[in-house]
């Protein structure tokens, strides 16, 4: 008979039981979505701007916040009956399988948030379509609906798991944070300790490219960060991660619900077996964080103090919460001691680096590609010193890394926070220091970032030269030579002077200019590269891409500033003819650099 009970009917009844949630959801949607969309659409001059449409369907932070917050509230309020004995008794005495009850509450909670969102989005779409001149609104509508639905469901599923694991509403809110932020915090703590104590190590990325904004491990184990990642970039990877989280968190929540004993209602954590492991993980992480913070004072004593206090304070709080009795804060003291010992071992293992992680330079055969950020090669003011290399250039990259490693001075003593970026030489002046950052993208789905600094150019001369002479490097450094899409553009040309003043003129970029520039780059040798010195040695062409239709997105990725070095004779000749600027061919004399006069760059 029970199987004949309509799921849909029970679903409708459950939604009906939560009228205040439905009302709040509708009101928030109205003000965070429909009202701004209507304002934007009716504002003067906004009719053709479909970036605005994109904003409302996809990147609207109000909507994302509403969905994220709604996920937490819908999950905790939906399963709130598990936090009260008489409610639990009522629902569990009904002739319905727990799986079915779970699914009814789960789906109704999701619909309470999603249906108002869909309604609001559809209404906003109508506003957009009325003003539309193309099909773009529909595309962004579908993208926004898909991304936000997946992201919402992932966060919602994790919060349902949190609600089912706990027997108290307030604790379930805390548990939502634990479920969503445990892994990111763990990764951050581990990374921060390594970055503090290791000279070259800057971070790692699992399964993802170092260019991504966050490691996939964080996105994978935190539905909150997974949602953020999906909003930043809708791709198949983000979709797969969201689907994975929805399935895994929902399955775990259902399993936890089935295993949940009704009599444990009211307890902080209802599954006895999860209590201590959960506490241990939190205590160990907190202990490591305490050690990290107090190691900043600069002594072993304070670091140990940080580890101990970082462990004991949360351990006591958690035990007090578990028992709802502060007198039982030391109930599991042996476990606390074990946590402290484990935290010390982990901390020591990361800080003293017994595995020599700090000195590791991968052989080229292990790498798929590498990204090099090196100010000497290109000049810090161009904003484009990061180049991606593969193939034979990888040998040169690893050679460069080895030279960098061998010459990097270990400035950062253990338990010391005297680390600072050295941007001055011993005389307090800018010198030809290098900040050599390399991202190693391994053949395995893993990448890591290394930093070798401070270095003198002479210390990595061999590697730099080898790298510069590799095929394809010049194209990476000077993208203008492989792209002719800027022909017949008006560009600004500037000269930079020693006192940071600039002289600017406009020039029309033609094929003649591009030919001259390309020739100069091809003829250029490693020795022609300028070294960073007190006087900038480069001129630059600045091309404003913002006026190019449909290139707004590309403008974030394509360099729009191109250097002109002193060896670029053909380019300089062309500019002399076409502009009012009088580019001097020669490098200024040393004594002139000390004067506060206007100095040409060549």
């Amino acid at each position, binding site marked *: *008979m029970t199987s004949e009970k309509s799921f849909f009917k029970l679903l409708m009844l459950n939604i009906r039981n939560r*009228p205040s949630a439905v009302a709040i959801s509708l009101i928030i949607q109205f003000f965070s979505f429909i009202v701004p969309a209507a304002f934007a659409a009716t504002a003067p001059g906004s009719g053709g701007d479909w970036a605005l449409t994109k904003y409302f369907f996809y990147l609207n932070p109000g909507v994302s916040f509403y969905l994220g917050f709604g996920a937490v509230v819908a999950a905790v309020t939906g399963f709130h009956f598990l936090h009260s004995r*008489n409610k639990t*008794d*009522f629902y569990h005495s009904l*002739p319905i399988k727990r799986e079915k009850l779970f699914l009814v509450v789960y789906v109704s909670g999701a619909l309470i948030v999603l249906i108002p969102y869909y309604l609001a989005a559809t209404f906003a779409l109508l506003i957009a379509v009325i003003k539309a001149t193309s099909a773009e609104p529909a595309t962004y509508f579908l993208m926004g609906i898909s991304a936000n639905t997946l992201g919402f469901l992932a966060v919602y599923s994790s919060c349902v798991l949190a609600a089912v694991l706990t027997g108290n509403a307030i604790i379930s809110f805390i548990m939502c944070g634990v479920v969503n932020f445990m892994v990111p915090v763990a990764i951050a703590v581990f990374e921060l300790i390594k970055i503090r104590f290791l000279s070259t190590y800057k971070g790692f990325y699992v399964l993802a490219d170092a260019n991504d904004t966050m490691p996939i491990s964080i996105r994978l184990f935190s539905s909150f960060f997974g949602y953020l990642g999906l909003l930043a970039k809708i791709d198949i990877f983000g979709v797969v991660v969201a689907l994975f989280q929805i399935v895994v968190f929902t399955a775990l929540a259902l399993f936890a619900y089935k295993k949940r*004993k009704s*009599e444990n209602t009211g307890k902080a954590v209802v599954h006895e077996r999860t209590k201590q492991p959960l506490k241990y993980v939190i205590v160990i992480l907190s202990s490591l964080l305490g050690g990290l913070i107090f190691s900043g004072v600069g002594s072993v004593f304070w670091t140990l103090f940080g580890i101990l206090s970082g462990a004991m304070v949360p351990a006591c709080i958690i035990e007090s919460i578990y028992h709802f009795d502060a007198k039982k804060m030391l109930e599991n003291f042996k476990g606390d001691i074990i946590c402290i010992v484990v935290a010390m071992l982990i901390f020591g293992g990361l800080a003293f680096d017994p595995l020599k992680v700090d000195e590791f330079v991968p052989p080229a055969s292990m790498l798929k590609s590498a990204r090099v950020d090196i100010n000497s090669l290109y000049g810090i003011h161009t904003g484009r010193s990061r180049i991606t290399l593969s193939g034979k250039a990888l040998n040169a990259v690893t050679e460069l890394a080895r030279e960098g490693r061998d010459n990097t001075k270990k400035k950062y003593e253990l338990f010391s926070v005297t680390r600072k970026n050295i941007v001055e030489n011993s005389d307090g002046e800018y010198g030809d220091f290098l900040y050599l950052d390399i991202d190693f993208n391994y053949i395995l789905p893993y990448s890591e970032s290394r930093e070798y600094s401070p270095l003198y150019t002479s210390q990595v001369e061999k590697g730099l030269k080898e790298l510069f002479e590799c095929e394809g490097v010049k194209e990476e450094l000077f993208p203008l030579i492989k792209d002719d899409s800027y022909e017949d553009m008006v560009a600004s040309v500037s000269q930079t002077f020693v006192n940071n003043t600039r002289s600017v003129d406009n020039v029309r970029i033609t094929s003649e200019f591009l030919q001259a520039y390309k020739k100069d780059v091809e003829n250029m040798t490693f020795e022609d590269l300028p070294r960073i010195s007190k006087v900038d040695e480069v001129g630059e062409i600045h091309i404003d891409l913002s006026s190019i239709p449909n290139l707004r997105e590309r403008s974030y990725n394509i360099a729009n500033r191109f250097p002109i070095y002193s060896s670029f004779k053909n380019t300089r000749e062309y500019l002399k003819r076409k502009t009012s600027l009088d580019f001097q061919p020669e490098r200024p004399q040393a004594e002139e650099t000390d004067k506060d006069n206007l100095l040409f760059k060549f």
Partner: protein
Amino acid sequence: MIEVKNAVKNFDDIVAVNDVSVDIREGSIFGLVGTNGAGKSTLLRMLCGILKADKGSISVDGEDVFENPSIKENIYYISDDQYYIKNYTPKDIMKYTASFYPNFDKERYNYLINTFGLPYIRKINNFSKGMKKQLSVILGVCANTKYILCDETFDGLDPVMRQAVKSLFANDMQKRGLVPVIASHNLRELEDICDRVGLLYKGGILFARDLDDMKLNMHKVQCVLPEGFDLAKLRELLDVVTLETRGKLITFTARGSREETEQKIASFEPVFYELIPLTLEEIFISETGVRGYDIGKIIL
């Protein structure tokens, strides 16, 4: 029939139900009595499938009740602190309950709501405690389940309503074989309505017997025995449960049939003796007293 076999339920370190075995037969009203914390509510929650026994088994009509919706459709549980969904009216709760209990009698529900004088479209949360209790009984009766489990349901009902509820149960027992299981402290109430009683004490069941048998097998005797009579002899010959002396007057309760008890007292050649019928409350106090729950230590 509800069969409980060696059921054990622990709440952390507390043994709430300890090796309880009891049969609840059809055609009777089963009363569950016990001291505070004896495990009455826990046993009821186990009987309706809210809690799962740690050990032992609980079966209803031959099937395990836990996570068994087809069996639970035959059981309606009325909690001592019944939950009503926020903003629900009696009309709403009827629809909700009817969606789970396929034999729910809506016409009878409407009739009873009117008869009991309950407002049909007022929010239940604004009802008094007694009105909520009445509503829960009406829901339970109209759900048309075979078993109705009531936890302290009569508390909060006025005498008239108590009588009305009793007659409702009696009517349904007669018409459709309803089996009410009632847990209560109010032994006088149970005495009036129950045919069979289970006495729980510290999680374990002391006995489960027909009320009539129980009354016939335990007697309270007031007597004056001859000068110098040795009370040890009394204890030796009779199964004395409690004994109290006030001057020459001896009051005791003893197990055994009326004839047997009278015969043995007569053999003591008493100056005077009288058999007084025991109330359920006195049986309860006597039995629990034997197990160390001495009411005299509590009532000072």
